[in-house]
C-alpha cells in the first residue's frame, strides 16, 4: 500500500499537477517583482516552499486516501489539542495567536485543521447514503466542525474561520439540504452574525466590514489597503505597466503586496490581459479538480475531492474579490500565488488528496 506502483503513477493527473506548478511559478515571478528591492530573497524562499509542497504532495499520494480517512479521528483529536495549545501557549504574533513553534518549525495549526476537516467530513459522510441530510446528522457534523471553528475564531483568525464555514456549507450542500434546513441554517447564521458583530468582533474587524461599504470613509486606516489595491489594479489598464514597473507596488503604496495582495501586483504590472490569463488558468485548475469528483471510486472520495476543491476555490474567489474591494479584507491568501509556506503547504496537500482519490479510482479495496 505504501509503494506507488507503475500503474498508479500513470493515473496521476499530470495536467492538474502542471497547472498547479504553473500557478506557483507565476506567483514566484510576481513575488520577485514586488520584493526584489527588499532584503531576504522572498522568491528563493517561495521556491523552497514549493519544493517542500511537492514533497508533501508525494507523501500524500503514496498512501491510499482510505487510510487517511480511517485515521481522521486521531488527526482530529490531535489538531484540536494543537489549537488549544496554540491558544494557551503560542506567543502573540501580530495580535493573533495563530502560530505555534515546534522546535525550529513554526506551524499554523489552523491551516492543518483545514486538511483534517476535509478528511473528517469524508469519513462522516462516507456511509451517508440518503438523498437529504437529517437533523441528527446535521447537528453531529456541526458539532464536529464547531469545536475547531470556535478555537480558530478565538485566536482570532477570521479568514480561516470563514474558510471553515465554506467547507462545512459545501459538505452540507453535497449531502443534500432541504429548503427548510437551508432557511434554518441561514437564520442561525444570521443570529450568530448579529450576535458576533455586537459582542465578538474586534473594532478593527468591524471596520473592515464597514470599509467594504465605504472605503473612502477611512482612507488612511483599513480602507487604505483596498483603495491602494484598487488603484494598482485599475491603473494597470489593458496591458499593464510592465514587469517590475508597477508604481503602486514598487513604491510600496500597496501593503502586503507579496502575500494577500499579490494579485494586485499582477493586475497592475500585466493589466487585464495578465488577470485574464491567470484567472482562466485558475479556472482550468479548479475545473480539473472539481470534475475529478466524477472519477472518485466511492463517496468518501467524492467528499474529499469536493471539499478540497472548494477550499481552493473559496480562497481564490474571496482573495480576488477582496483585493478589488468586493469583499472585506479578511486576510485570506491566494492559494499557490501568495507568498507564505503554511498556505502553500495546505494547498499542495489538499491537491495531493484530490490527485490521490483520482489516481486510485480503479484500485480495489
Amino acid at each position, binding site marked *: 500500500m505504501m509503494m506507488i506502483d507503475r500503474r498508479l503513477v500513470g493515473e496521476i493527473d499530470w495536467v492538474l499537477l502542471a497547472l498547479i506548478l504553473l500557478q506557483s511559478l507565476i506567483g514566484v515571478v510576481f513575488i520577485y517583482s514586488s520584493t526584489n*528591492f527588499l532584503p531576504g530573497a522572498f522568491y528563493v524562499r517561495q521556491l523552497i516552499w514549493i519544493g517542500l509542497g511537492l514533497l508533501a504532495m508525494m507523501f500524500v499520494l503514496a498512501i491510499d486516501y482510505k487510510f487517511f480517512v480511517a485515521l481522521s479521528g486521531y488527526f482530529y483529536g490531535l489538531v484540536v489539542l494543537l489549537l488549544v495549545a496554540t491558544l494557551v501557549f503560542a506567543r502573540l504574533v501580530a495580535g493573533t495567536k495563530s502560530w505555534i513553534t515546534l522546535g525550529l518549525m513554526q506551524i499554523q495549526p489552523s491551516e492543518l485543521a483545514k486538511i483534517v476537516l476535509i478528511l473528517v467530513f469524508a469519513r462522516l459522510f462516507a456511509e451517508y*447514503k440518503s*438523498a437529504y441530510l437529517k437533523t441528527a446528522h446535521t447537528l453531529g457534523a456541526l458539532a464536529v466542525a464547531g469545536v475547531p471553528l470556535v478555537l480558530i475564531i478565538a485566536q482570532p483568525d477570521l479568514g480561516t474561520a470563514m474558510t471553515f464555514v465554506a467547507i462545512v456549507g*459545501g459538505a452540507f*450542500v*453535497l*449531502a*443534500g439540504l432541504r429548503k427548510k434546513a437551508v432557511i434554518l441554517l441561514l437564520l442561525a447564521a444570521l443570529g450568530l452574525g448579529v450576535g458576533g458583530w455586537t459582542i465578538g468582533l474586534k473594532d478593527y474587524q468591524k471596520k473592515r466590514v464597514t470599509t467594504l461599504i465605504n472605503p473612502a470613509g477611512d482612507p*488612511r486606516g483599513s480602507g487604505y489597503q483596498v483603495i*491602494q489595491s*484598487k*488603484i*494598482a*489594479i*485599475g*491603473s*494597470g*489598464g*489593458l496591458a499593464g505597466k510592465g514587469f517590475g514597473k508597477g*508604481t*503602486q507596488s514598487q*513604491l*510600496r*503604496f500597496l501593503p502586503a503586496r507579496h502575500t494577500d495582495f499579490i494579485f494586485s501586483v499582477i*493586475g497592475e504590472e500585466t*493589466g*487585464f490581459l495578465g*488577470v*485574464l490569463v491567470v*484567472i482562466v488558468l*485558475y*479556472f482550468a485548475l*479548479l*475545473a480539473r479538480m*472539481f*470534475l475529478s*469528483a*466524477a472519477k*472518485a*471510486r*466511492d*463517496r468518501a472520495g*467524492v*467528499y474529499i*475531492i*469536493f471539499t478540497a*476543491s*472548494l477550499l481552493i*476555490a473559496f480562497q*481564490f*474567489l474571496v482573495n*480576488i*474579490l477582496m483585493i*478589488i474591494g*468586493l469583499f472585506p479584507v479578511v486576510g485570506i491568501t491566494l492559494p499557490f500565488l501568495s507568498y507564505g509556506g503554511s498556505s502553500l503547504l495546505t494547498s499542495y496537500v489538499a491537491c495531493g488528496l484530490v490527485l490521490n482519490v483520482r489516481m486510485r479510482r480503479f484500485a480495489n*479495496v
Partner: protein
Amino acid sequence: MPENRIYEDLSLVQRRANIVFWIVSVLIALALGYYWKVQILEHKKYADLSEANRTRMRVLAAPRGLIRDRRGGILADNKASFKVSLIRENVKDEAASTAAIARLLGIDEATLRGRVALRKDLQAFEPIVIADGLEAQDVAPIESRRLELPELVVESEPQRFYPGGGLAAHVLGYLQEPPPEEIQARPERKVRPGELVGRTGIERQYDDVLRGRDGAAYEVVDSLGRVRGETARQFPIQGRDVVLTLDPVLQAEAERSLEGREGVVIALDAETGGILALASFPTYDPNRFITRFTQAEWSALMSDPLAPLENRAIRGLYAPGSIFKLVMAMAGLGFGYVTADTSVYCSGATEIYGAIRHCWFAPGHGAMNLTDAIRNSCNIYFYGLGRRMPIDTIAAAAGRLGLGRRTEVDLDGEKDGLVPSEKWKKDTLKAPWYPGETISVAIGQGPLQVTPMQVAALTARIAGRGRVVRPHLLRDDAAVASAPTAGGPAPSDGLPPFTSATYEAVIAGMWGSVNEGGTGAGARVESFDVCGKTGSTQTMSRESAERLARAGRPVKTHSWFSGFAPRVRPRIVVTVLVEFGGGGGATAAPVAGRIFDLFKKGLERP
C-alpha cells in the same frame, strides 16, 4: 439500489458537486467582469489616482526664537536656507544615483554614502538630509534636475544666523544635531532626527524656550514623490525670544580689547549681577558650522590647542594671584588677625620658615597698613597674614566670597574651581597640610583655582558690601538673588560675619590701587572712582619665576584685573584676565579702564 461499494451510485453527490462548481464558475466570470470594469472601463480614473497617489506628512520646522541684547538688538537670528534630502525608496540605480548626486552637490561619494548610512534606520520613504545650509543659487541646478533624480527633495528651512559673527559667541553657544542616543534618551523633548539643538551657551541653556513647535504639511505626493497638492497645513510656531542682559557696546569693546590674545573680559551690573559683557578669546564664528555636516571646520576648532570653543569665563581655571589678597584682607580684618591700623614693614624680602621670600617690588614698600598693602599689592604683608592664619580660616573666607563653587550663572558646563583646605589635602593627596603651603595661598598661588566668573562674582560681592550677586544672562531672570544685609546670609562657618568696616577698609585699598598710584592705575577713569585689584599669576613654580626675574628675563604670567565703579553705589563690575599678559597693572587694568570709561559715557548719554 444495492449496497455495493464498488458500484455505489454516486451520481447524486457528483451532480451536486458539479452544480457547486458551476456556481463557482459563474462567480469567477462575474469577478472577471468586474476586473474588466475596473481595468478597462475605469482605467483613466485609476491611472490618474495612481499618478497623484499618496498623502505624505512633511515637517515644517519651527524657527528658533531670537536672542536679543538688552537694547533689543538681534544676536541670533534666522534666515531662509535650503536643505537637500534623499528618499531611498525612489532610488532606481544606487551607484549611478550616488555618483550623480555627489557631483551635483559637490561632495565626494564616500561622504555622501556616510551621510546616508548615518540614518539607515529610517524607513525607506523618509527623507534623509544630505546637504543643508544652501543658498537659493545653490539649489537651482538641483531643482532643474528633479525629473531625472526623483529621489532628491529640496526644502527650505529656517537656519540660525548670528549677525554679529563671532560676537558673544561663547555666550550664545552653538547648535548641533544631537547624537541618536541622546534623542532616544529624552523622548519627551520630541527632537526629530536632523533637528539642530543648542549644545552650549544660551542656545543650550534656554533650548526649550527657543525651540518652537514644528508644524506639518499634509501633501499629496505622486508615485515619483512629486508634490501634487496639499490637504492640510498646521503652521509651525516660532520659539520664544530670549532677551539677554548683554550690552552690545561693552561686548564689542570687550572683544576688541582681547583681539589677538587669549583671555576673558567680564562686565557685570553691580546691582543685579546681569552680565553686560562676556568675552572669551580666542573665539570662533558659529555661523561657520551651522550645518549637520561639520567635518573640517569643526574638527579644526576641536583640536586647536588654544581651545577656542571653550568658554574660559566659566571653564578656565586659573590661579587668582594677587586678586586673592582681597580674600586674605577680608579674612585678616574680618576675623581679627589684624586691625586696619596694624603696620608691617616691607624691606623687599623676608624670611619665612627658613626660606627667603621676595616682594614683587625689590626695593621694598616700607611700613604699611592693610589699605596700603592692597594698594601696592605688597607680598610681604600678606605673607605675614598667611603665617598667622590657618588654611581652613582662609578657606572659610574664600567660601563666603563664592570661591570653590559654581556661581550658578545660566551657562552650562561651569567649573567649581578649588579652594584648598586641610581636609581637601588629606582626602585627595593623602597628606597633611604644611604651613609653608599657606604662604603660597596667601598671595593666590598654590593649589588655588578660580574661574574669571568667580572673580567677577567675588568683586561684585565686595562692591555690594556683602550683598550676594548671582551673575546671569537672562534679562528677566526672576531668580536674581539678593541679600540686602551686609555680610550676606549668616555664615555657617562659626566665624564672625564681615562687618561693613571691613569691606570699607578693603575697598579703600582697591580705590587707592587705581587712584593713588597703586598697581591698578591703568584702570583709572576721571571722576568715576574706580576701585580694583590687579594680579599676576605665575604659571610656573615660584622659585623658578623668582630666579628668572633676578636674571632679568621676562616672566610670562597671566594678568588679572578685577574692580568696580563707582566706589559709592557701584554700578559696574569688570573682571579682565589676559593669559600670559605680563603684569596685571600693565595689561589687564587698561582693558578694564576702557570698559569703565565706555560704561560711564553710556550713563552720561541721555
